[in-house]
């Protein structure tokens, strides 16, 4: 495992450096900075998608809504009720974890032996239900929450101001990707989770509770989604029902596929690559005549990866 991690890290670094050098050389340095700081949000969502897929082979389409629910919870307890920020964040994360656990217990576990496609559709159903509940309880109006870090101009790269909150998103992505990669490669629990994903029966026979591990994974993915939502909503300007699903799920999914679906560093790299590609598409004069060039770019990337290298940049065939 350490070898795999090292190889992944090396490949990630090489890709990132190569991409950055090319963009700076071609005068797209601003697009590079914007792509990195916006791609960090996609990477955070991708981490959660990879985590669930890596451990259970399920595409979790409710990932975005776990995060959106956390945003609403934070908005409610902090902005409306007046709970201080830190306790409010803890409550919001607890809400997203609780939602993930309920999803696991009520939807995933009964379908554990069903085809993966059934689980995939089931998670989409959870997302739809969550969006409907958000609309019902929270109305469709755009809402705004203040960033935890308010300073806007501490850092400027290539004439693009990078706010502290955006730096926080980027730092969170890096830290979480590394910590999770180490968790899966260096800890018994991480190895047990990988074992469950590959040989659940054998793992069970070894005395490891598959169900308990499943709950743990879903709680963790709920936590990741909550972090993604709480960190990215303030920089986005406003949020509304379905916020993370509509803004970050497709880019996050593309990032996860790009990274190899099972590679946590890959999710990190994928998020950044998607962000930079999208940023290039929307800022380049060559694409100005194409409506929705950023979205087009994401689908083009997805298509290329799925057809040319389905195992992703950092995945193994």
């Amino acid at each position, binding site marked *: 495992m350490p070898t795999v991690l090292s190889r992944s890290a090396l490949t990630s670094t090489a890709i990132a450096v190569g991409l950055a050098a090319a963009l700076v050389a071609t005068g797209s340095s*601003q*697009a590079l900075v*914007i*792509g990195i*700081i*916006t791609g960090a*949000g996609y990477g955070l969502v991708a981490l959660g998608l990879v985590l669930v897929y890596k451990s259970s*082979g399920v*595409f979790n*389409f409710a990932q*975005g809504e776990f995060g959106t629910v956390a945003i609403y919870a934070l908005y409610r307890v902090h902005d409306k009720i007046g709970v201080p920020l830190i306790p409010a964040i803890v409550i919001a994360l607890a809400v997203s974890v609780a939602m993930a656990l309920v999803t696991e217990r009520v939807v995933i576990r009964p379908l554990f032996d069903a085809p*993966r*496609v059934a689980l995939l559709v089931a998670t*989409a159903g959870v*997302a*739809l239900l969550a*969006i*409907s509940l958000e*609309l*019902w309880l929270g109305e*469709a*109006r*755009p*809402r*705004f929450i203040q960033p935890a870090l308010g300073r*806007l101009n501490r850092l400027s790269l290539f*004439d*693009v*101001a990078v706010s502290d909150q*955006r730096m926080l998103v980027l730092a969170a992505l890096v830290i979480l990707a590394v910590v999770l990669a180490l968790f899966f490669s260096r800890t018994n629990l991480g190895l047990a989770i990988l074992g469950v994903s590959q*040989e659940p*029966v054998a793992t069970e026979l070894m005395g490891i509770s598959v169900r308990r591990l499943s709950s743990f994974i879903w709680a963790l993915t709920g936590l990741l989604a909550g972090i993604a939502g709480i960190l990215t909503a303030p*920089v*986005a*300007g*406003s949020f*509304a*029902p*379905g916020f993370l699903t*509509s*803004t970050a*799920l*497709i*880019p996050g999914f593309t990032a996860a*596929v790009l990274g190899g*679906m099972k590679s946590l560093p890959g999710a990190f790299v994928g998020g950044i690559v998607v*962000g930079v590609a*999208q*940023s290039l598409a*929307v*800022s380049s004069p060559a694409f*100005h005549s194409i*409506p*929705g060039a*950023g*979205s087009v770019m994401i689908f083009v990337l*997805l298509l290329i990866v*799925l057809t040319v290298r*389905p*195992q992703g940049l950092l995945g193994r065939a």
Partner: protein
Amino acid sequence: MTRRPSKVAAARGAAVVLALLLAAACGQKSNVRDSSAAPAAGDATAGGNPGGGPAGGSSAATGDTVATAGGAGAAAPAGASTGAAGPAAGSSSAATPGRATSPSGGTSPGASPGNSPASAAGPGSAAGRTPSSAAGASSGGAGGGGGKAAGPVPVPAPPPPGGGDRTGVTDTKIRIGIHAPITGAAPFPQNAFDKGKDVYWKMLAEKGGIFGRNVEVVFRDDQFNPSRAVQVCREMVEQEKVFVLLGAAGSEQITACARYANSMGVPYLSAGVNEDGLTGLSSYFATSQTYAQQSPVLVSYIANKLHKTKIAIVLNNTPALNETQQSVTREAQAAGLNIVRNSRIGKNASDSELLSEANALRASGAEVVYLLTSPVNFIKLATNAQAQAYSPIYMGPGITNGLNIVAEAGCPAIGSAKFLSPFPQLDVIDNLDPDYQKSYQKYNGGKGDDIGLAEWGLSKVIGSMLQAAGKDLSRQSLVAALESGREFGTNVYPLVSYSGSIRFGARSSHLLEADCSTRSYKTIAQFTNGF
């Protein structure tokens, strides 16, 4: 675990689900219908005033509607909205031939300062309420003149033969359909919509309705999506059998629905948006100034009031807005403004697109950003610009960016943004139309908001038009009444008139300015068509 499909197959399935999910994320609350719209239909009316129209003594609000239809300078006295105006209703159809003349010439510089809605009836009084329309000759240009004869001349609807298409009309009810973006990229609180959509009709019902008929509103969420808009319009026309369709906001949705309505021969009215795609539709009528008509107003404000010279133009990237981009570019150049950036952004722009745009705007040095995007894009763009230490003055035409929910969510990033609007804000409505808050309080038990006000104003315009169509209401008689050239004024929406060739006949707009200390908009100019 044993039946796990290959990664590629699963990814394909995932892509399909993603598409479904994305659609869902854009909104779910559709198919909201309220059949409780007007109270007790004709029952209340029956005893009171069958066919008589809103009897005299109706409040200013009603009175003006009637007087509008009545037209002919006789009704002109401002403030005369009351009693005397009433009878005009019934006779309106017949009373107006003389007014069919120059709808676009419009607005004489009359001066009656009264604020009676009845003003709309007469040229003089109309101007009284619209000081700027008096000045209209100056900057009015395209917009101020009210109405722009566009390319192909619409085929006028046949005169009412006494029969006509009476779909959606009974002796006691008129059913109308409204679509608006409750969800999607321009989300509005549904609760506010629900509360506001019937207030005017309930008030009117208590006064006898429209020739004894009360109005029932069928409402649908178009999800800010033109395909969905056509779908809901089709439902309202073919299943709900509405008499007339109304579009509340959203240029693409309005264009799509208007074209569908035209193909079905259903009258369609909306707040003014683009003209491309709507010009030539015989059943379409704009109740307020189009974006192109608003361009000279905005440019004159930038040049003469703000005294700024460097402007950027940012619009949603939809072909429907090409003509708007051309018009504002032309007007700005004519006014000697320096257009430092002229760009389009996606309708559902991503975070990186908005950040890139904000950065490009800052680099351009634009002092004023002319903006025509959805509220969500506006708020996100302003937030990203603020994060780049860039705070220009945002200005634009439109219907939705001047709503208080935008200031609520967008302050402080939006600064002192200024947007034209077909309706004023709450700070002046008590002066313009005291009935709004009273009625809202009466039927909903609280203070009316600006979304309710927008619906109130639109309902008033429609009410006056239905009144003008006469007792023998049919789709043909409605179109004929609209094309007759008479003026419709409400003291909320601008004065408007049409003819066989003019479908964009509004003369003025209100200018709203964000006040971030109260997180709301205030009205800084009423019924203006230039500065």
